[in-house]
Each structure stands twice: as C-alpha cells, then as structure tokens.
C-alpha cells in the first residue's frame, strides 16, 4: 500500500489504473453513501423474505406476502368484469333503440361491440365489416334479411341456416346441377339477370328467359327481381352482388344455388353482448336499416306461391 503513487496536486493515492495518461484517484467514499448502500442491502434482504425472489428446482420462493402479479391481473380482470356487469345491466335493460340514441350507452355498445365483432365476426365479415365474396358486406345499405335493429339482432342470435329452430332459413335450388333447368335455360336466365341489373344483355336470351324467371325465380326474388327480405332473397336490380356480378358468377349461382351459413350466437354471446354488437353493426351501416326505396320488396306472393319454387321439380 505504502508504495502506491500519490497524486501531486490532490495528495490522494491513485488506484494504479491508467488510461491514456489519465489516472484514477483512490478517493474514499462519503460515509452517507456507504450508509445508503448498507440500507439498500438491508432492503434487499427484507425483499427476499417478503416477495418472490429465489428460484427453486420446481418453482420459486413465494415470499411471506405471497405477492403475485398474475393474481393481481386476474383480480383486476374480475373487477373489470364486475364494472362491465353494471353497464351490461344497462345494455340488457335498455331497448336497442334507446341504446343507440343515448350517447354514453351508444359509446359503450360501440366499444364493446367492436371487440366482440373483432373476436367473433371478423373472420368471415372482415375486420372492417366489409365482407367478401359469399360473406355479406355489413357496411352498406343492402340487407338480405333486413337491416333494422331487431332484424340484425334476430340474425345474430339465431344465425342463418345454422340448424337453430329460429334460424333464418331459405334454400335456393341448384337449378342446373339438379336438372331443374336445361343448360341453355340457365344461360338465358343469366342474361336476364344481367338485364335486370341495368346492363346490356342479349335481347333474344332475355325474351326467352322472361317466362322462366316468372315461373322459377319470381316467387322469391319478386316479379321485378327486387328481392324479398323475408326469405333472404337478394335484390337483383342493384349493384350489390354477394357472389359476384359477372356472367360467370351469376351462372354459377343459378347452376349451384349456393347459400352461406352463419352460426347462431345465442349460446356463445350473452344477450347484452349480442345487443352491443347489433348496435355496432347498425351504427356502422348508417343506422337507417330501411333500404333504399327502390330495393323495397314488392308484393310477389299474390300471384306466386313461395313454397312452390324450392320444391319445384
């Protein structure tokens, strides 16, 4: 110790370390610093005793306080659920219309509805609800089964062709595959549907298909092709096409008569959750639910029997 170098200016010994000519003085620590250090050691020991600290072979020392962030989070989630329960009661009690018209209830339903939609509906309808081929666009004004609040609630609760006794139910026949119509008739009908949607079509085919449409299609789609929400028959005169608007898509649809399935959510979501997601869908679609006047279903059942078309040979 005694042969250590002593700095000329300060009179303090150096540690013997040197970097590029700069030497480190071996100054003593202030006592208060040392005291703080000892306190920290003491606190650390107390911490080991009170809190989870040391790993063991198959776990860890839990500490006397049995503190656990995992348990804390679980408790927080419980508290949150209880808090939501309060709002959920409001959701359950209020009517759909009241929920939509009351600002804080609408805000709550929108927030919860968005989460529910993202978890349950987005896989088919898309995160934004814009749908895709075969999956309905929920953001526009076209509704196969009705866009009023009660219609949407009914569809979500019981689903479409889901097997639920109260499910939305209809079946478009596979006109081509099952031999109900001849291939040429299906081709002519395709032209007729194109004609219905205000596009140029072969006049001859349209003329040939008109009686076929009146006999086979008008029962559900209406004599003018404007659809019927009671049986989920789409309006064929607008610009919205669930399975595509080109001739090939229309031909395929007449040939195979596809119909999608939407599960019933009654058992999976609570009544309040269904209400929340109903309001969410309704608000995002513009909240009117009344389709544009042109798309209103016309009275088609007067001259045709709705049951005859699906059961037709």
């Amino acid at each position, binding site marked *: 110790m005694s042969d250590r170098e002593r700095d000329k200016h300060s009179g303090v010994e150096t540690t013997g370390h040197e970097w590029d000519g700069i030497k480190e003085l071996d*100054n003593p620590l202030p*006592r208060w610093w040392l005291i703080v250090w000892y306190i920290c050691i003491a606190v650390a020991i107390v911490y080991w005793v009170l809190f989870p600290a040391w790993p063991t072979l198959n776990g860890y020392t839990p500490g006397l306080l049995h503190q656990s962030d995992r348990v804390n989070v679980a408790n927080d989630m419980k508290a949150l659920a209880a808090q939501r329960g309060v709002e959920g009661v409001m959701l359950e009690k209020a009517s759909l219309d009241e929920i939509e*018209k009351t*600002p804080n209830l609408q805000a709550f339903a*929108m927030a919860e509805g968005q989460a529910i939609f993202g978890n349950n509906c987005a896989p088919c309808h*898309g*995160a934004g609800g814009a749908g895709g081929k075969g999956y309905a666009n929920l953001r*526009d004004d076209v509704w196969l089964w009705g866009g009023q609040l009660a219609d949407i609630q009914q569809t979500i609760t019981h689903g479409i062709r889901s097997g639920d006794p109260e499910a939305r139910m209809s079946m478009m026949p596979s006109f081509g595959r099952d031999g109900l119509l001849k291939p040429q008739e299906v081709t002519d009908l395709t032209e007729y549907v194109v004609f219905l949607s205000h596009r140029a079509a072969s006049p001859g085919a349209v003329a040939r298909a008109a009686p076929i449409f009146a006999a086979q299609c008008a029962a559900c789609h209406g004599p003018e092709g404007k659809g019927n929400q009671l049986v989920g028959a789409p309006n064929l005169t607008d610009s919205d096409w669930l399975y595509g608007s080109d001739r090939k898509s229309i031909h395929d649809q007449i040939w195979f008569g596809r119909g999608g399935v939407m599960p019933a959510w009654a058992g999976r979501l609570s009544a309040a959750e269904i209400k929340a997601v109903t309001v969410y869908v309704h608000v995002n679609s513009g*909240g009117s639910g009344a389709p544009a006047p042109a798309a209103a279903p016309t009275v088609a059942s007067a001259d045709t029997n709705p049951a005859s078309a699906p059961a037709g040979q």
Partner: protein
Amino acid sequence: MTVVIDRVSGGGGGGGESPPPGGGHGPGLYQKRKAIYPKLAHGSFRRLKWGLMVVMLAIYYGTPWIRWPRPAGAPSQAVLIDFAHGRFYFFMFDLWPDEVYFFTGLLVVAALVLFLATAWLGRLWCGYACPQTVWTDLFLYVERLFEGDRNARMRLAKAGWGPDKVLRKGGKHLVWLAIAAATGGAWIFYFEDAPTLFASFIAGEASVTAYFSFALLTFTTYVLAGTLREQVCIYMCPWPRIQGAMVDRHSLQVTYRHDRGEPRSPHRKGDPWTGRGDCIDCQACVVACPMGIDIRHGSQLECINCALCIDACDEIMVKVERPTGLIGYDSDEAVTRRSQGLKAIYRPIRPRIVFYALALAAVCGLMTWGFLQRTPYQLHVARDRNPLFVRLSDGSIRNSYSVKLVNRSYQPRTFRVTFAGAPVSRLQSPGLDPDRSGVSVTVASGEQRSVRLLATVPADRLTAALTPATIAARVDDPDAATPLLTARTMFVSDGAAR
C-alpha cells in the same frame, strides 16, 4: 485563470478536523463528513437572503391555501394538481393531461433562464433560490437559536452530554422535525383541496398516499437540510458539474479579488498597508461559508455563490479601515487583467448570453402563441380506412368518419357539425338526427363525445378517387375566441363515375 484547489494544505476549513479512518494506511474505505459550523454573517447579502427566504417559504407554504373562483363542480383551489380527475389548475388556467407540453415548455423556459442567469451571474439559483439552500438556511437559523453561533456550537459539540446539551440538541431537533413535517404537510396540499385534506389528515382519514408522501417529504427535509446539507450539493446534485459549461471568464461570480488581497498576511492596527495585500488572513470568509470551503482558492465546484463571504469580509474591511469589496461579484477576466496591471474589462453581452436570451425569447414566444391558440373545444376526425369506402345499392359511394368533439368548458355545448368539399347528397349519424347540411351534437361539460358521420355522394357527382373535404364544427359559445373548428379529411372512392 487556472486555480489549483489545494486540499491537502488548505486547512482551516470547518474545524473539527480528524485524520481519515483506517489508520495510516491510505485513505480508508469511507470518509466521515467534516462538521461545518458556519458563522452568522451580517450585511446586505445576508439581509437580502433573509428576505428571499421569507418570500420563497411563504410561496411554498401558502400557495395551496389561495382560493380562486371557478364554476360549480370545479375545485376552488388556485393551484391544484388533481391526479384523480386528470387536471392541473393554475389560477385562470386549467390544463388537461394532453396539454402536458405546456409543462414541458415551462421546464424548457426554466432551464434556459437558469443557463442565462448562470452565464451572466454565476450560480444565482444555488446561492439564493434552491430549496436545499433555503431550507438549510432555515435549519441553520434554528440551530443558532438553540446552540448559539459558531464558537458556541463547536464548544457544545465537544462538551460531554449533560442536561444543557440534551435540552439544546433535543430542542433543535424537535423544531427541525416540526419544520420538516410542515414542509411534507404543505406538499400534499398541492394535490388535494387543502382545507378538506387538512381536516381529514388531522382526523386520520386521509389516503395512504397522503400519509406516505407526508412521511417521505418530512424525512427528506429533515435529513437533507438538517444533517446532509452541503453534501447534497457536492455529491448528489448534478448541477455543479453542469454549470461549468455555462460560466466563462466573463461571468460575474462571487470572487476573491486576489489582485487586491495578495500577498496576504496578518495585520496589526497601525502597521503600514504598503507592499502587501488587503487580505489579513483572518479566516472570516472561511468560517462564514456554509460549504466549508475557502473562497480564496477561486471558483470551485463546492461554491454555491451564496455571497455570505462577501458580507463576512466586508465587516472586517470596515474594521481595518480598508475599502470593502475584497470579495465581491467579479469576473475571472477582470481579476486577471488587474493583477497584470491592465484595466479591467467587463463583457456582459457575449455570444452565449445572446444565444441563451434569443432561445429564451423564442420558447417564450412559442409558449405564448400556443396559449393564445388554446381553446376549450376540440374537433378530431378519423376517416375509416377499413373499408376505405362503401358502394351502396344505388351505386353511390359512402365514407364513414369518427368525429370526436371535446368540450372542456364549464357549460354543456352544442356543436353544429357540417361536411364540405364533396357533393354530399345524404349525411347519416346513427342515434342523432342529421339534416342535409349537418348534424347538431350536444356535449356535456368536461366531456368528449364520439359520433359516427356517414357521408354519401352520388356516383355521377364524383370526379376523382380522392376529394379533399372539410369537417367543421361550430360551437354555440358566444365568447369563444375560435367558435369554428375545422378538420381536413378526404372523401375516397374508386374514382369511376357510373
């Protein structure tokens, strides 16, 4: 001027010197604090510091008790940091959490003021305004009340424990604790309504946070101002290290004018003053120093520029009938030039001063502009991006917007939200009742409300995929500086008219 601080022979510090522990072998593992017994100084700087101390302590202890009229529902405390409700009240201003940048601006202003003051007049902050200095001064005042001035305190420290020492020391610590408790107590009043909290605090019904903050502030005040004192400045505070970058040769600092004082030597009454300096090596400046240093070693990290050595020296100079000001505010440049026989020059306007002043003016201007732009109403518009747009059954295009309206006034307000820029044929806002030109939305006081706005444009009216649009909201507040809020957005389509 380079000053080598000679700490080996620079004796006479605070007295009570003891050899470092650890025997003769090196410095030992730790260094015991050398007790410092500052002697009371008399003079203009001491009087100024007493005055400043009273003012600053009054501000600290009194501010939470100032009342300020606000509309019903809002607290009536002039200065209140309301964490529970996320508001900061400062007299006529009330800031919301998202306006925290005003705090940031205030901190930048404070930093620039500090830089400017330091470059110009040295460590003004440390010497006069720092809480550590002010509370240490207050604690020293109490110490003198119980134990007397420097010599009496040193005697008492050496004396054995008897009734007198127990009474004096005990009394001092009791008063210190009382002051510390009052300091900790005043702190919590900034965060809750002071009269209410005071009553519940006394009754033992205040929150754990309040009691914990009280205990913590009491403890730190007691320890930092009572026992740690100068060690806070020397070891804990980063500012002494930073301020070296602010001062230069022209900064006016508390300086021993060695051109006038050297060579120093003791002086007896009647001795001639020729051939020697004015410093009579009486140690008055050293014993008055609360940091326990010798100002005659020049500018040093430990010196907080408290100016008490100026008062101490001036007293002596008057007694020995020499001009006062042997220690005073002076610059290194002036002292050096005078010692070389040149005329002292002072340069208060230097590039760094100008830079700090300009930066300060710029930030102050920006802050003022920001405050003038401030309105209690806000409009935020977020356009839906999924889907970008929706084609309706008649071929028209609809875009959806989330319109957030914020009302931070004390009255419920109605916003008239309108859409302009695109030939909209229909506006929809579920739950509300819009007409062709817009929709009226009522927002409660201190609330924000999000509404969905859906705008439909007929396909034959669209000319481009992107149409710039504006969503505006007019507030029904006749006193609002800017009643019309606007947000620029877009109307998106596939661009093809059908």
